[in-house]
């Protein structure tokens, strides 16, 4: 069995042509996995639809219409109208922007911070490593939602404080993963080989170790986005999220839960939107992970 796999797949790989780059692998994944490709299409569609909304949406998301208060879903109002008679579907489409921002901004921040700290921690070792990792231990010991609540409370609420809160909560897990990978890469012969030809340590870290962490970073990124979206919606639901004019989906559920028994669609629709968006990201993330998994092994 071992002899079937080792040399065979090695030399057979030579025929595959592309596949050396992460981008090539991901392109191959989209060709092979219908689910991942479909999920990506859904995500792109939602993003495009929400940003292009003013171009084609017949309703204003913030304009009340008293005659249509609590109108049930119909052909003209796909997801009904809310307590002020605003078209809920329009509000959902506009609300997607917040979810996207929430998905991307704090995740990017936490990935950048986590990668930098993990890389330094794993490469430098010693006291630097000890300090950074104990800090990560501390952050990871908090239930993330509670910590985000506190940070957002401290910073006084609003979108930026949510960004900061989610980034503060998210970096530690990334740092741990990248540190572990850095430590294992550091022991690889190709790093020793670079050292033996006289390459500087800083260059080794950036040119050899960081690029080899990229598959991991991409996987962490795709899997952290849905988590951030869920966390934000939870914060909004608990009333420590973004403020009302920019209604995020979580906040919409929070606001309409009082009407649950009489007008259930009001709370159901934004929740379903969160579920679909998060599910699409998770399916995509799974596909990415399965594709890049062999390249993440140490």
């Amino acid at each position, binding site marked *: 069995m071992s002899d079937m796999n080792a040399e065979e797949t090695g030399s057979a790989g030579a025929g595959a042509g592309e596949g050396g780059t992460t981008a090539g692998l991901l392109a191959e994944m989209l060709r092979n996995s219908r689910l991942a490709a479909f999920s990506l299409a859904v995500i792109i569609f939602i993003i495009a639809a929400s940003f292009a909304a003013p171009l084609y949406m017949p309703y204003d998301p913030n304009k009340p219409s008293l005659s249509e208060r609590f109108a049930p879903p119909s052909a003209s109002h796909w997801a009904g109208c809310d307590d002020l008679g605003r078209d809920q579907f329009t509000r959902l489409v506009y609300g997607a922007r917040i979810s996207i921002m929430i998905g991307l901004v704090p995740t990017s921040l936490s990935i950048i911070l986590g990668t930098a700290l993990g890389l330094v921690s794993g490469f430098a070792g010693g006291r630097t490593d000890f300090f950074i990792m104990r800090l990560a231990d501390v952050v990871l010991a908090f239930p993330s939602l509670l910590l985000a609540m506190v940070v957002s409370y401290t910073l006084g609420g609003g979108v930026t404080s949510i960004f900061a809160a989610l980034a503060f909560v998210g970096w530690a897990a990334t740092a741990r993963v990248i540190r572990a990978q850095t430590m294992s890469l550091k022991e690889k012969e190709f790093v020793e080989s670079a050292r033996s*030809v006289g390459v*500087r340590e800083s260059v080794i870290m950036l040119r050899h170790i960081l690029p080899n962490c990229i598959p991991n970073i991409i996987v962490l990124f795709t899997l952290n986005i849905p988590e951030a979206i869920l966390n934000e919606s939870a914060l909004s639901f608990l009333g420590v999220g973004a403020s009302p004019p920019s209604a995020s989906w979580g906040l919409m559920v929070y606001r309409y839960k009082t009407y649950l028994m009489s007008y259930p669609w009001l709370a159901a629709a934004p929740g379903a939107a969160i579920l679909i968006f998060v599910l699409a990201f998770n399916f995509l993330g799974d596909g990415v992970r399965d594709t890049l998994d062999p390249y993440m092994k140490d």
Partner: protein
Amino acid sequence: MSARPRLLEADHLVMEFGARGVMREKQTVQAVSGVSFYIDEGETLALVGESGCGKSTVGRLALRLLEPTGGSVRFEGTDLGSLSPSELRAIRRKMQIIFQDPYASLDPRMKVYSIIAEPLVTHRVYGAKRETEARVRELMSRVGLGPEQIDRYPHQFSGGQRQRIGIARALALNPKLVVCDEPVSALDVSIQAQILNLLSDLQEELGLTYLFISHDLGVVRHISDRICVMFLGRLCETGPTEDIFRTPLHPYTKFLLEAVPKPDPHLRKEKKALLAGEMPSPVNPPPGCRFHTRCPESGDICAQVTPEMRSFGARQAACHFIR
């Protein structure tokens, strides 16, 4: 052989790895305990021994990829320990290493060009990229790689081809000394032969000096001029290759040579002299001669006094009982 100038001289190298953690008593692995040897220009010195004997560590100490706990290495008369980091980086141009595992020793995210060009770029050998590329192509053809392979990634090559890439990279800076750390042990026999032939050719053409680290005695006998046999961090015996293979002096060398399965059924023996027991731990090596716990010829003195290297003609061996 004595006419050749001395290239590298290692003097009483000691390497201890501390395995120390929070709340654990300090354990030191005595990987190398007082190893001295020299290499003359143009020759091949082999370091042989079983796993855990410290031969790879010695190779890295010779290049100062590891900082020794004790002892010194002189390369062309310069004490490597006295050099600043930048001076050390500069002297690395003259000494290179080829690794055992062709799967792990090439950065999987780099193309062949970048791998081979890295030493050239690092030392700013050429001003223009065109010159660098010309040199890379020249190296590739010298080690038997096709020019069309320059833009491929390591995973697109077989083990033997990867080892060729590693060799091209090691030769890029025209080194004098090349440490070959088990360069063929991960390869199939037929590929092994190709790589060994390549190494021999290169040595002849470029006048290279090899420090050849291997556990494969057949390979060592084929390629080396002199041999150092190691056991648990110490040298047992050193001398010209053929002398040692014909008449090993040290008891461990005898067992080692006897143990190798010979590719000739006529050489089968009904009763082979087998070395009993297992390798002692390098954390807690036996006192005196480290081989004495497994040595059938050992006496009382072996457990108490560490044998020094003594000369026997062209050879040296560390055993109390050799006359």
